[in-house]
């Protein structure tokens, strides 16, 4: 029993070892360089990329620069051409990605050139650096390789505008809109209104005072009422009533409620007025006025 268990563990170790030495895809002699258009060879940035590790510093790619990667792909330490040799560029913020295929020769030598024009607008407009990974894989059981190689910082030319990446229409929630109402009409401060109202109201006592100081009086009241009491009472009261009708019209009545009483009272005013004014005329002719 123990023996069989030992045998089993031994077999497991062998199996694990065989997995660890299973063939894998990889590369060697990888260099990444950034060259400016027109600049001579070796003028730009150049760096070696090691297998299974990323460059510590991000690589800047300017508007007129070309990123070039040269490498030799290997299967199990032998140079060989894989079916898939991609540079996978991914925006870690939006999770958008795209791949660019290497041109790989029979002997595994691969080359890729990348400019800003090749990158889609969605990646160009990313604010942070992009993750660039090398993906080398092919058919069969050889383990594929996909490890981040470097950060790619796209430096946009401030002069030339970004290729328009207008957001396409997608159905979704829209921003809320709240109608902005016209502001209510406002009144001046109440104190000012009250001062002027007081001035207007004060005009009446001033007027009456002026009349009294000029000698206005009601001395003929008894004379008038003794000679023709009904016309005088009706005339003055009907004038007051008309003002009362106007007050009702101002507060609650509509025009159709207002007009009949106004006509009725107006008739009373007309008839009683002619009598009352005849009495006034009589006083004038008697020399009392």
């Amino acid at each position, binding site marked *: 029993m123990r023996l069989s268990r030992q045998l089993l563990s031994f077999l497991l170790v062998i199996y694990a070892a065989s997995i660890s030495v299973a063939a894998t895809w990889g590369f060697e002699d990888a260099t990444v360089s950034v060259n400016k258009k027109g600049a001579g060879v070796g003028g730009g940035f150049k760096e070696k990329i090691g297998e299974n590790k990323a460059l510590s510093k991000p690589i800047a790619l300017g508007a007129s620069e070309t990123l070039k990667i040269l490498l030799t792909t290997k299967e199990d330490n032998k140079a060989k*051409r894989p*079916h*898939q*040799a*991609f540079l*996978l560029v*991914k925006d870690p913020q939006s999770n*958008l*990605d*795209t*791949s660019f*295929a290497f041109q*790989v020769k029979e002997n595994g030598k691969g080359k890729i050139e990348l400019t800003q024009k090749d990158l889609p607008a969605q990646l160009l407009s990313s604010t942070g650096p992009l993750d660039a990974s090398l*993906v080398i*894989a092919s*058919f069969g*059981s050889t383990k*594929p390789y*996909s490890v981040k190689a470097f950060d790619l910082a796209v430096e946009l030319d401030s002069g030339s505008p970004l290729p328009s990446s207008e957001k*396409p*229409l*997608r*159905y*979704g*929630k*829209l*921003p*809320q*809109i*709240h*109608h902005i*109402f016209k502001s209510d009409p406002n*009144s*001046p401060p*109440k104190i000012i*209104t*009250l001062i*002027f*109202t007081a001035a*207007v*109201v004060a005009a*009446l006592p001033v*007027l*009456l005072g002026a*009349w009294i100081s000029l*000698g*206005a*009086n*009601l*001395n*003929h009241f008894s004379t*008038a009422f003794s000679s023709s009491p009904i016309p005088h009472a009706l*005339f*003055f009261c009907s*004038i007051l009533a008309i*003002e009362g009708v106007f007050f009702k019209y101002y507060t609650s009545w509509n025009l159709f409620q207002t007009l009949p009483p106004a006509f009725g009272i107006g008739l009373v005013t007309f008839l009683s007025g002619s009598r*009352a004014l005849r009495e*006034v005329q009589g006083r004038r002719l008697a*020399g*009392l006025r």
Partner: protein
Amino acid sequence: MLALDPRSYGNEKSAASLMEEVLILLLGCISNRGYKLTFESPKNDKLALFQHGERAFDHILLLPQKSKGTSSPANVDDFGLPNPGLGPALTPKLLVQFINQNGNILLTLSADYPTPTSISSLLLELDIHLPPDRDSLVVDHFNYDAASASEKHDVLLLPQGSRLRSDVKDYFGGDGTIAFPRAVAQELGNSNPLLAPVLRAKSTAYSYNPKDEADVVEDPFAVGEQISLVSSMQARNSARFTVFGSAEALENKWFDGKVKSVDGKDCKTANREFAKQIAAWTFMELGALKVGRVEHHLSSITGDAAGNDSVAQLGYLNPTIYRVKNEVTFNIEISEYSYDHLSHLKIDPSDALQLEITMLSPYHRLNLIPISQTPNSTTFSSTFKLPDQHGIFSFRVNYKRPFLTNVDIKREVTVRHFAHDEWPRSWEISAGWVWIAGVWITIAGWVAFVGIWLWSEPAYEQSKGKKMQ
């Protein structure tokens, strides 16, 4: 429902066997749900999608067609065209007409059976692009079934349930793994909001043509997550069209199959569940919304009364006219169909059902809040103040979301000005006090003047003489 099996092109026997292989499970779970199935070959002369101008079928399931090149020699009668399409009854125009008449189509593709040009042109019309090489298939050297495709890597293993957006309902979710053998890549146009990918490939996948002699891929048709393996299109009339990239994934073999991932883990496939979700969505069993009562009334009328019935009883429901600045309450009841019953609609907090108060353009756009819910409906409500603009307004609920049928409800109302007796009275406006006082003081002065004129005695004696002159 019409299930079209174009693989039976002149070969009835293979049709039968393929039907057994591919269809029984998928269609079994469909027909269990009460569908009546009709199997037709496009070769059938009597096949017609329309009868008397109306749809003859509710749904179509199109299966991949055996290419002419691989069919038996007896069939090669129109050899001039390698793959003429689906025959006169299924031209792209007729299929589009079928969609326009609210018919749903589930189209399955397969890399083993080159896609007919008529299908490609139909898809092109919908802004879904297929690889120009008709034999292309999708491979992923990182996510494949190590048990069945250890060499070719063309059986993709994909996790179920990648949500399209956080605010979109997850109809195709789950924890399972989907096996996707020999899939045809689709690329979706960016400008069409009616399209939505359902299942996308992983970022290391790419599409290539296995018949291409080159042993390295240099210009792949599509790479990474831009490859849509299952795409959906919901037309403006809510008719649904689904492109399923791998007909083989619907076969018996994969429905309850076992697969082995690259790192050696065995797991069961979730193809059965996924196929059920896809078929249910395409055939309007999922994500179909139904609008119940749509009501609006003056907010002040409800008062303390509970529920809207009291408003209805009072006869104040859905008036045709409101006044500017009225407080109005709008209620809408929506149900969602779920497989075999109506259920209440639940909206994700990151999404919102919105009400627009529009005249030409929206004056208000407000989120409707769920206020009550029954087992098969939810009532959403919003209370708002009408804008201070008179005219013909509409209360519009325009709810268009991926995977949900479109809701576009409009209720037109007249919004009138203040009537002359609805304004504040003059004495309520402090600025008017001066003028009001002026009017009444004038009146009082006039009355006093009348009294004095009638009854005053002349103030001075001399005036007599003057007057006499």
